[in-house]
């Protein structure tokens, strides 16, 4: 578009300003107004939501505690070769003495001890013990011998290796831990088989989520198909049966399953009553994987039905009729004509259910026992019980990455703007 008239004059507005500039200014003002309307929420979300997530990401690699508590030792240890197999010399012990005196004064040595205990068990007690003895040490005498006398673990090369390895302010240690690995003398290696839990838990989370997604699809597809085929009045009525569970509190539904599935519960009582099972042979359906799968399938089923329904609603019945008039039987007409058109709905529903289920915490915690828990339960455990926040953050980061990748897939299938509620 040109901003000059045919005879070369610049177009102006009525008050004489060039049209281009006036339009540009109007556009800028409009952009500014839109942005100002969005800004309050944007700032709110950045502070209350995005900052916490970034804080978590930071925590998963942050490791300034060694450097802060033992600054001189960290510097002195730079000279020491951790591969030599010898314990560091007197210089390092002198630095450690200076640092420990300050740390004991500020009572920070126990925190460092419990931090390093995540990497090598026994270090926590080593720091506490040394902390008690530090006042009695004599600065004039050789400090190395005094430290060794306080606790012989100071003469152990692995203690020093751990200390040196975790002296930088950033560490990949939490992530290695989250992958059941550790940094040994020969580089990254897997932990001994009996200490590996996270890879197994990630695997179980993915496996159970897949099973839940598939069972949701199996149960959701017929329902969505029926709802889309029935006349609007009937389907709206039946829709209530889908929407009521959707709107009912998660805790309510979980407690319902707890009531139904337990050994003295309604289902077992009924099965005993109709003599299908004996009173001594009551089924164990709760506090294991079965419980998690049943309860979560029920809880997430509406999230499968609703996207499927909205896609199936748009499939015109004329295609199936055309197929039949061309000689296809019912099955062929469904499988070759109807089903391919419903695939986008399957994709949307399946990804949605999968995303929701891999991050689930409450239901597995209540009905999963020990064999039916997810990675999120382990994250919660590290936050509130073991207090290993760094590891919790690393596990959370991995889970977040998985969800975001899935979400990009979801966005490709459905588009974020097409998310509909109710």
């Amino acid at each position: 578009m040109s901003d000059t008239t045919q005879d070369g004059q610049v177009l102006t507005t009525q008050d004489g300003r060039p049209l281009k500039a006036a339009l540009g200014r109007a556009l800028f003002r409009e952009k500014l107004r839109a942005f100002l309307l969005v800004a309050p929420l944007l700032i709110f979300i950045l502070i209350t939501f995005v900052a916490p997530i970034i804080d978590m990401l930071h925590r998963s690699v942050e490791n300034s505690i060694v450097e802060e508590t033992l600054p001189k030792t960290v510097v002195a240890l730079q000279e020491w070769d951790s591969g030599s197999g010898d314990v560091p010399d007197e210089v390092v012990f002198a630095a450690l003495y200076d640092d420990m005196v300050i740390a004991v004064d500020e009572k920070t040595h126990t925190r460092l001890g419990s931090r390093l205990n995540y990497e090598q068990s026994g270090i926590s007690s080593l720091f506490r013990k040394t902390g008690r003895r530090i006042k009695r040490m004599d600065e004039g005498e050789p400090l190395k011998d005094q430290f060794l006398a306080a606790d012989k673990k100071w003469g152990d090369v692995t203690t020093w290796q751990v200390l040196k390895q975790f002296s930088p302010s950033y560490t990949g240690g939490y992530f290695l831990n989250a992958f059941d690995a550790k940094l040994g003398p020969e580089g990254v290696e897997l932990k001994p088989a009996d200490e590996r839990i996270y890879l197994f838990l990630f695997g179980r989370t993915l496996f159970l989520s897949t099973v839940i997604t598939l069972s949701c699809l199996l149960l959701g597809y017929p329902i969505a198909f029926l709802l889309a085929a029935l006349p609007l009045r009937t389907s709206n009525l039946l829709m209530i049966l889908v929407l009521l569970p959707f709107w009912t509190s998660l805790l309510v539904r979980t407690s319902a399953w707890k009531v139904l599935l337990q050994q003295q519960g309604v289902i077992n009582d009924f099965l005993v009553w109709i003599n299908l099972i004996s009173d001594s042979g009551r089924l164990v359906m709760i506090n294991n994987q079965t419980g998690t799968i049943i309860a979560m399938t029920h809880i997430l089923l509406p999230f499968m039905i609703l996207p499927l329904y909205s896609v199936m609603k748009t499939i015109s019945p004329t295609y199936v009729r055309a197929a039949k008039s061309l000689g296809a039987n019912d099955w062929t007409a469904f499988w070759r004509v109807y089903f391919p058109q419903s695939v986008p709905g399957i994709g949307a529903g399946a990804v949605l259910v999968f995303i929701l289920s891999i991050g689930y915490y409450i239901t597995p915690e209540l009905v999963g026992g020990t064999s039916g828990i997810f990675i999120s339960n382990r994250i919660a455990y590290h936050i509130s019980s073991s207090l290993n926040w760094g590891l919790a953050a690393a596990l959370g980061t991995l889970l977040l990455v998985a969800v975001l990748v899935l979400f990009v897939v979801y966005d490709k299938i459905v588009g974020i703007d097409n998310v509909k509620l109710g």
Partner: protein
Amino acid sequence: MSALPPYASPLQRTWFYSFRVICGLIFFFLIFPIMVILPLSFNAQDFFTFTKEMLSLKPEGYSLKHYNDFFTNPDWQQALKNSFLIAPVATLLATTFGTVAAIGLSQSHVPFKPVIMAILISPMIVPLIISAAGMYFFFSSIGLQGTYVGVVLAHAALGTPFVIITVTATLVGFDRSLVRASASLGANPVTTFFKVQMPLIIPGVVSGALFAFITSFDEVVVVLFLGSAGQKTLPWQMFTGLREQISPTILAVASLMVFISIALLTVLELLRRRSERLRGLTPG
């Protein structure tokens, strides 16, 4: 599918009816767990199953004692009070910020729209356990962990995506020439907003607010980490009740909450019909 043609073969006939039976069973699976707790909550015994007296419909098998416990037990009453102190304030915050932002987002020229949209929707996508972990770390470092304000802010953040989505959806059907008409008649933007735009988008705002309310009212993971004993909400109390001292009072609470969901569902359905009618889509 909707009706069986008269020329259907016996095989088609069998499939037609067995398909309906299968669907009926799935509907049963969906609704039965919710319905079964209603009669069980009137159990006169402290059992989680039907007693002989209940099955033979004898009046002595039923009682209101679990409801009585809920309304007299200080723990449950405190939890109920906390829930109603937290959810409305979080809803108000989420709805106000969300509605204003949705109006901003629906303008024709918004800079960096995809990025902004992704950030604003993110609380809905990120798994709750991760939001809870991040907020716990961050809020403890700024002193908001274990405070009422902290829980309200967190719940408001979790509720805003729903408001954004519902209000944006309503604004799609909003005729922008109405705003221009109002301006040409001399109304300033604020008057236009309250007199013209607001009455038309109110169904979206209300259903967004309901979503935000239920998000906060049902939320347990974040409050479990962020709250202290003083912010114990109803779902939290139910969670501890289910995990530790399993008491049938939970069934009474659950039954009451089912009625809350039914009420919410009804309001939403009425709103949906109203907005469809306004858009002239389907009559009723």
